[in-house]
């Protein structure tokens, strides 16, 4: 009776495992597999020596950095605004005139390169 309560040993376990249900026999496995293989077969089999041709497609390169595009647009817009403002007030022309006048009148002559004096002042020619 005590042996009945003992756990089975390895040999007994092997005997029990051998008594487990055997897998069923395969029926039509090969034929079914061949049908599945046929379904998988590509319509056109590529040959070894054929180099596949690919239609060239243009590379559309998106801007790597969105902020770069934005900053360029912002800079253009800013320069346009500045240009319009300056154009309206006429400040630029007066600044340019002032500078030209200063150079012509000799106020900045000492900064001019050697030889400028020899050419003479623009006003001299005009006056004579």
């Amino acid at each position, binding site marked *: 009776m005590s*042996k*009945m*309560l*003992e*756990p*089975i040993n*390895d040999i*007994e*376990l*092997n*005997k*029990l*495992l051998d*008594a*487990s*249900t055997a*897998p*069923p026999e*395969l029926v039509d*496995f*090969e*034929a*079914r*597999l*061949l*049908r*599945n*293989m*046929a379904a*998988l077969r590509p319509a056109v*089999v590529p040959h070894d020596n054929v180099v596949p041709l690919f239609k060239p497609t243009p590379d559309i390169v998106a801007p790597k950095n969105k902020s770069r595009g934005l900053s360029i647009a912002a800079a253009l817009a800013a320069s346009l605004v500045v240009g319009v403002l300056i154009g309206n007030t006429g400040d630029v022309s007066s600044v340019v005139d002032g500078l030209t006048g200063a150079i012509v009148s000799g106020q900045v002559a000492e900064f001019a390169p050697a030889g400028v004096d020899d050419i003479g002042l623009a006003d001299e020619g005009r006056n004579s």
Partner: protein
Amino acid sequence: MGAILALHHGTETTAGRWQSASDAALLEASARRIEPAFVVLIQRYQRDVFRVVWRISGGHADSEDIAQETFLRLWANPAQVREAKALKGWLLRVASNMVMDRYRRKPTEEIEAAENVADSNPDPLECTELTQVSRTVDAAVAQLPERQRLALALVHFEQLSNIAAAEVMELSVDALESLLARARRRLKEILGPKGREMILTMEKAK
């Protein structure tokens, strides 16, 4: 359908030429899409693959589909088997991974499968005593964790060496032996005193 059967018949007759070829030659021919060579590989290993799948899936109805899928994967690229002598191991590994993957995604099905094996015919009056023993052992095996079940299927049922089974499972031999030991210990626990009764039943039936 007739065309398919004719194709099948044709491949079967020409496959005869490849019967004695080595696995390496068959794999190489399969890579060149020579179907009769592949048919011989199917004939050689279909039962091994199916048995392992059937054992680890707990006799699930999907077993044959998984075995089919295993061969289709090989046919898709026979060159992926690096060593022809390891072909059987490769097939068993792919098949068992597929089983585990499938039931990991659908764990309830695994439980159902185990229950199907255990209780597909619960009426003892309809079973002989030996059939009842078989069903009880099946149910006990089905309760093992999948890795332990695979180790047991490979070593006990497929008679693979520990080294070969460890290669299939991509484990060290020590790890495989540990899995096996745990599987056997767990089975003894599950079967308990009923195990000894079943041994007596089997001895009486002899």
